C-alpha cells in the first residue's frame, strides 16, 4: 500500500513537471481533474467511462490471477458488442435484452476459449493467440457494420439502432442499469476468488505454476475455463455498452477510448486482486474523464492523463521489482 502511495506521488510530480513545461499551473490542472471527475457535472461522465473500464479490468484480471495474460480483450469486447446488436435487432422486449446480453457473453467466451485451446492443444503461447485472434474479430465487426448490418440511412460505418424496447434503461446521461451488471460481476469475482476452491486453484496457479501442477491442478482445463470467463465478461461489457446510448454499434467506438488497455493496466496495477482492480479501474476512469475538464480549464491536452497512467504503472512495476530484489538478494 505504501509503495502505491509513493509511486503515485512520484507520477504526480512528474506530471507536474510536464504541466509546468507546457506553461500551465500544475495545481490548477490537478484541481481541474479532481473537480472535473467528481464534481456534479463530471461524476456522470466518470461513471459512464468507469463501467466499461471496470468491466474490462475484471475480465482481464480473471486469468491474470493465475498468471495468464489475455491480450485479446479488444476482440472479445467487440465481438460481444456486435453479437448483442445482431440478436437485439431481431428480438423485442425484456426477453430481447436478456437474449442480447447472453449472446454477447457467449460470443466473447467462445472466442476467448478458442484462444485458450490454441495454447493447450496446439502449443502456441496464450499471450500470442489471444492477441492475434483479436484483430480478425475487429475486422469482422468492421466488415459487418459496413455491409450486411449497415444502417442504410447513414453514411457512417454503424449498425442500425436497437428498437426502443431492447435498450437498457438509462439512469442519467450515459449510465444504464448495466452498471449493476458490472458491479455484480465484480462481486462474483471477489467471492469466487476468496471463498471457493476454483478461486483458490486459480491463485495457487498464479503463485507457482509448477507447484500447482504438483498439487494436481489440471492446467489446460483451468486455462480454458479462465479464458472463457474472461472473454465472457469482456463480451458482456461490449453488450452493455451497445445496449446503452447511442444504442448501436459504431465501428471503432469501443477501441478508441482504450477501455481494454486501461482495464489491463488497472488489473496489472492491482495484481488482479478483486477490490484493488476495482479501485484502480475507477481511479483510471476518473483520471481520464477529469482530463477532459482539465483540457477545458487549462488548455493542456487531455492526453496528459494517459501519460500519467502509464508512468504510474512503470514506476510501480519498477518499485515492486526493487522490493522483491531487496527481499531476496540473488
Amino acid at each position, binding site marked *: 500500500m505504501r509503495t502505491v502511495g509513493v509511486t503515485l506521488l512520484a507520477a504526480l510530480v512528474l506530471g507536474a513537471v510536464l504541466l509546468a513545461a507546457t506553461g500551465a499551473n500544475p495545481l490548477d490542472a490537478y484541481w481541474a481533474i479532481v473537480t472535473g471527475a467528481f464534481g456534479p457535472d463530471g461524476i456522470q461522465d466518470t461513471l459512464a467511462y468507469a463501467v466499461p473500464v471496470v468491466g474490462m479490468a475484471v475480465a482481464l484480471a480473471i486469468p491474470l490471477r493465475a498468471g495468464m495474460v489475455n491480450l485479446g480483450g479488444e476482440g472479445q469486447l467487440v465481438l460481444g458488442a456486435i453479437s448483442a446488436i445482431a440478436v437485439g435487432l431481431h428480438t423485442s422486449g425484456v426477453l430481447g435484452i436478456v437474449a442480447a446480453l447472453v449472446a454477447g457473453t457467449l460470443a466473447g467466451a467462445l472466442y476467448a476459449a478458442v484462444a485458450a485451446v490454441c495454447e493447450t492443444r496446439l502449443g502456441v503461447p496464450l499471450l500470442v493467440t489471444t492477441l492475434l485472434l483479436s484483430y480478425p474479430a475487429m475486422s469482422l465487426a468492421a*466488415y459487418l457494420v459496413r455491409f450486411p448490418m449497415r444502417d442504410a440511412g447513414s453514411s457512417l460505418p454503424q449498425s442500425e439502432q436497437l428498437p426502443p424496447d431492447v435498450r437498457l434503461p438509462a439512469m442519467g446521461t450515459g449510465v444504464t442499469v448495466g452498471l449493476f451488471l458490472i458491479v455484480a460481476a465484480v462481486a462474483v469475482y471477489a467471492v469466487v476468488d476468496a471463498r471457493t476452491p476454483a478461486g483458490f486453484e486459480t491463485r495457487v496457479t498464479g503463485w507457482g505454476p509448477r507447484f500447482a501442477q504438483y498439487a494436481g491442478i489440471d492446467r489446460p482445463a483451468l486455462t480454458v475455463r479462465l479464458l472463457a470467463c474472461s472473454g465472457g465478461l469482456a463480451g458482456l461489457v461490449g453488450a452493455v455498452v451497445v445496449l446503452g446510448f447511442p444504442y448501436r454499434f459504431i465501428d471503432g467506438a469501443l477501441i478508441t477510448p482504450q477501455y481494454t488497455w*486501461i482495464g489491463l493496466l488497472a488489473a496489472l496495477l492491482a495484481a488482479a486482486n478483486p477490490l484493488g482492480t476495482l479501485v484502480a479501474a475507477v481511479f483510471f476512469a476518473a483520471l481520464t474523464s477529469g482530463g477532459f475538464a482539465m483540457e477545458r480549464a487549462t488548455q493542456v*491536452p487531455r492526453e496528459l492523463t494517459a*501519460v500519467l497512467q*502509464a508512468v504510474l504503472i512503470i514506476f510501480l512495476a519498477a518499485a515492486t*521489482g526493487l522490493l522483491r530484489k531487496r527481499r531476496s538478494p540473488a
Partner: protein
Amino acid sequence: MIDAALFSSALGALTPILFAALAGALCQRAGVFNISLEGTMLVGAFAGVAGSWYTGSVWLGVLTAVLAGTAYSVILAVAHVSLGGDAIVLGVAINLLAVGLTSFLIRTVFGTRGTFSDPALRGLESVHIPGIADIPFVGEVLSGHSVLVYASWLAVVLLAVLLYRHPWGLRLRGIGERPEAAASLGVSVTRYRYGVILAGGALCGLAGAQLALGNVTLFSENMTAGRGWIAVVAVMLGRALPYGVLAAAVLFGLAEAFGFRLQGIGLPQQATDAAPYVVTLLALFVSSARIRRSRTREST
C-alpha cells in the same frame, strides 16, 4: 495478380516489422522478453517526423528517430534490468505511454490532432540501384526502395554475424541461456542486457523512421497499428534466429501486400486486413506442431 509490384510493396510493408523483430530477437537472445517494440516504434516515428520537419533534413530526421528510440528504451532497461520490474507489465505500460506521449506531443508541438502532414515535410527518397534497376522483374522488385529497406537487410546479416561469429554474440547467447553461468565466467549480465535493449531501441527508431518517412510522409496517432506486436510474434515464429525472423517478416509482408491486392478483385478491405494475422497464427500452429513432433521422436 502476382507481379513485381506485389513483391515490391511487400518489401516496403515488411521493413518496419523486420527492424522491430530484429530488436526483439536481439533482446530475446539475451533473455529479455521485450514487448515494448510497438511503443518504441511509435516514438521513433514521431521523432523522425519532428526531426525532419524542424531541421529540414530527412537524414537528421532518421537520426532523431534512432536517438529517440534509444532514449525511450532506457525506461525498459532501467526498470527491468536494474530494478527488476516485470517485463510484460512494463512493456504494456511503455506501449500505452508511447500512445499518450505522442498524442500529447502532436498537439503541443504541431498544434494539430490526429495526423500531422505537410507538403514541406521531407520523406526518404527511393534509391535506384544502377545495374539492378534495369533488370526486368528483379529490378522492379529490388530497386526503388528507401535506403532503410536495404539497411534492414544489412541489419539481418549483421545480427547473424554478431550472434554467431563474434565473441559478443557468444556471451550474449550464454546470458540468454544460463545467466548465472555467464555471470560466474565474468560476463556482466546487466551490461549486455542494457546493450541489447538500447540497440533494440535504435532499431525500433529505424522501424518508426521507415514507417513515417519511408512508407508515407506523415505522423498519425497510433500509426504503428499493431506492427510492433506482429514483430513480437515474428520473433517467436522465427525462433529469434536472424534469418528465421527475416522469413517471418517476409511472410507477414507478403500476406499484407497480397491482401491489399485481393481488394482489387472485390474482396472487402476488412477481410484482407485480417489476413496477415490469420496467416501468422497458422504459421505458428505449423511450426509448434513440428517442434512437438520432433520432441516426441527424440523421447521415444
